[in-house]
């Protein structure tokens, strides 16, 4: 080794490998782990902001609840299909107008989609669903009702799991989520008394699972206050509907909503205190630039 034994007391340890240093190989300097950083990218959450964000989950839970309640009423014969069709169409029209009003038609200009195209797809959809509704009605006749219910439950749960709540995760897939919801609606619709019921049920499912979230997203982005109002209103109407069927179900559902919108944010913020995210020179570097410009 190059260093002289006599000088070893004054020599300062360096974090270099190319020099033979007068220290044993397992020497631990004071500078050990000095570049360790903790919680560099940790975000500070504010309670009400998190509660606001949890609105998406609440809304989706309520959508599923409203859907099931409406189905129950139809199945029991307490709700006339014409009435549901009328309300559904009316609210869709209002929603359609709102959709453009909220952002002053900016989204429409960006996407370049004409009203004629919207009308065409709506017509095509309604015609085909109406035409196929007798098939939908008889499609699952040979399958036992219990199986249908079980399948619907799984599909609706799957819809909730895979729904795009705005998180950037691998599990999120809005296509899969929508497909599962429509599948559940087809399953449930096939247990209704007539094919008109089935047609209206599937149309309603499209409205509540495909169109309604789009409107919500826009509401949330442009008018947060009205979004809170709409969420509350929606939650209470879902609760009310459930209450008319089952008291226990309504209480449990209310508890679930409170837990998701208040308790979970509270715990998220509390558990942040225990967060210990370690960073240091060993981390894989991130490429922050946009490198695709070199290829375009």
């Amino acid at each position, binding site marked *: 080794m190059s260093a002289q034994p006599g000088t070893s007391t004054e020599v300062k340890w360096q974090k270099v490998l190319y020099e033979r240093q007068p220290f044993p190989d397992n020497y631990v300097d004071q500078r050990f782990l000095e*570049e360790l950083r903790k919680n560099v990218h940790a975000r500070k959450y504010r309670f009400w902001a998190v509660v606001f964000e949890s609105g998406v989950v609440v809304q989706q839970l309520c959508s599923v609840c409203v859907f099931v309640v409406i189905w129950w009423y139809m199945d029991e014969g307490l709700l006339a299909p014409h009435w549901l069709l009328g309300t559904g169409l009316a609210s869709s029209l209002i929603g359609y107008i709102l959709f453009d009003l909220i952002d002053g038609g900016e989204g429409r200009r960006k996407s370049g989609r004409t009203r004629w195209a919207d009308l065409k797809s709506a017509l095509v959809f309604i015609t085909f669903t109406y035409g196929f509704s007798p098939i939908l009605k008889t499609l699952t006749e040979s399958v036992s009702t219990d199986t249908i219910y079980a399948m619907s439950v799984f599909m609706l749960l799957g819809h909730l799991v895979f729904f795009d709540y705005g998180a950037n995760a691998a599990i999120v897939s809005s296509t899969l989520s929508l497909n599962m919801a429509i599948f559940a609606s087809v399953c449930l619709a096939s247990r209704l008394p007539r094919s008109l019921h089935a047609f209206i049920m599937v149309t309603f499912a499209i409205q509540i699972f495909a169109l309604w979230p789009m409107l919500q997203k826009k509401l949330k982005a442009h008018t947060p206050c009205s979004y809170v109002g709409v969420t509350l209103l929606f939650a209470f109407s879902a609760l009310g509907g459930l209450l008319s069927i089952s008291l226990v179900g309504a209480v449990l559902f209310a508890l679930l909503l409170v837990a998701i919108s208040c308790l979970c944010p509270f715990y998220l913020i509390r558990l942040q205190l225990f967060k210990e995210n370690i*960073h*240091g020179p*060993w*981390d*894989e*570097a991130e*490429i922050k*630039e946009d*490198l695709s410009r070199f290829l375009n």
Partner: protein
Amino acid sequence: MAYRRRGRHGHPRSATRYRAGRGNLYTFRTRTHNICMVSDFFYPNMGGVESHIYQLSQCLIERGHKVVIVTHAYGNRKGIRYLTNGLKVYYLPLKVMYNQSTATTLFHSLPLLRYIFVRERVTIIHSHSSFSAMAHDALFHAKTMGLQTVFTDHSLFGFADVSSVLTNKLLTVSLCDTNHIICVSYTSKENTVLRAALNPEIVSVIPNAVDPTDFTPDPFRRHDSIITIVVVSRLVYRKGTDLLSGIIPELCQKYPDLNFIIGGEGPKRIILEEVRERYQLHDRVRLLGALEHKDVRNVLVQGHIFLNTSLTEAFCMAIVEAASCGLQVVSTKVGGIPEVLPENLIILCEPSVKSLCEGLEKAISQLKSGTLPAPENLHNIVKTFYTWRNVAERTEKVYDRVAGEAVLPMDRRLDRLISHCGPVTGCIFALLAVFNFLFLIFLRWMTPDSVIDVAIDATGPKGAWTHQYPYSKKRGENNEICKIR
């Protein structure tokens, strides 16, 4: 690797041993060890870990230790093979699962490994690479059998994602009762200590080495009318190939006399080809494809500047090889790279296209003004930095230290597992350790240690390779050793 280097290690031992001052081999060492290197990664696979194991083993043999290597079978290459200087390699018939790493059940390899440990009279198990399941299996079995264990970690790991959280937990379990751990750089040591929650005192830093005689400069091979930047790396995301695809057009537009030579293969090669196509640089950017280790030097000496764009690196051997060939090194400042070369031999940049371009421009202007040191001078400086003999000497100190330590008895090992690895994982692995111990007792009852033949000692102080004893005499000697034990 092994066969190719035979020329170097095959020459008469008296000639290689030794300049004075480097640990006198002829004064007989009081203590020699029987070392078993275990890793999934060995020749014919190629890479840093593989050459590390081979070179270290050769140098340890040179220093009078007995070394055997255990790895898994590579295709047709199975059974026992002897390499240069009687280095014995066991290619075990274990199933390869993913990326040349074997599947592990924690138990199925015990019969084979125990047999090897006993018949080779191994005293120290030295496992390599945290990606190798076999290395961890061997550590587990060795502790059950009461043998000393050493582990070398060659890689860096993050802490953020789920996969690293799980692997770090397994590493904690595997290393919590290992006698000593070796890391290849100080950054790697910090990383390993954090990952496995270790006492830093039992972690040594011993860098990798390069063979300076393999990487000599040859200034006549390069054209001084143009400037050539050399890149030699696998073309994968972690090596920063994306950054390279931004640097090439940026600099080629600025300097008309600039050429790139890129050696290596990988999934990201396609983006380099796209860049070359897009900017019409076919005559200035050469993609050589996969390189054999022996060809690397011939590529390096054609360049003036070496560029390394890695995003993470425990110890970057490529930049040492390049500097040894007399190239100016420009590299990203990640992982252990700042520790590897002194500041005047390397230009460190942030991992971004902008910063790397600035670093390269600095190197180009130095080159044009002629302020860069001559390749021969660079080589003479770098060749003193990292040698395998020095690595072996320092590893030997670890072995000496470990040999003096007691292996944890079973009860204390279980205590350590439970107290150190968390209540759930700790208890599970303590239970597995107990099963392993019972399995070992069963195996000992089936085939007692005494009926296992002692292997012919190829290397080591009384090795068959060193003294050309006739077979019968050698056998008799080995039996004597048995009796002494």
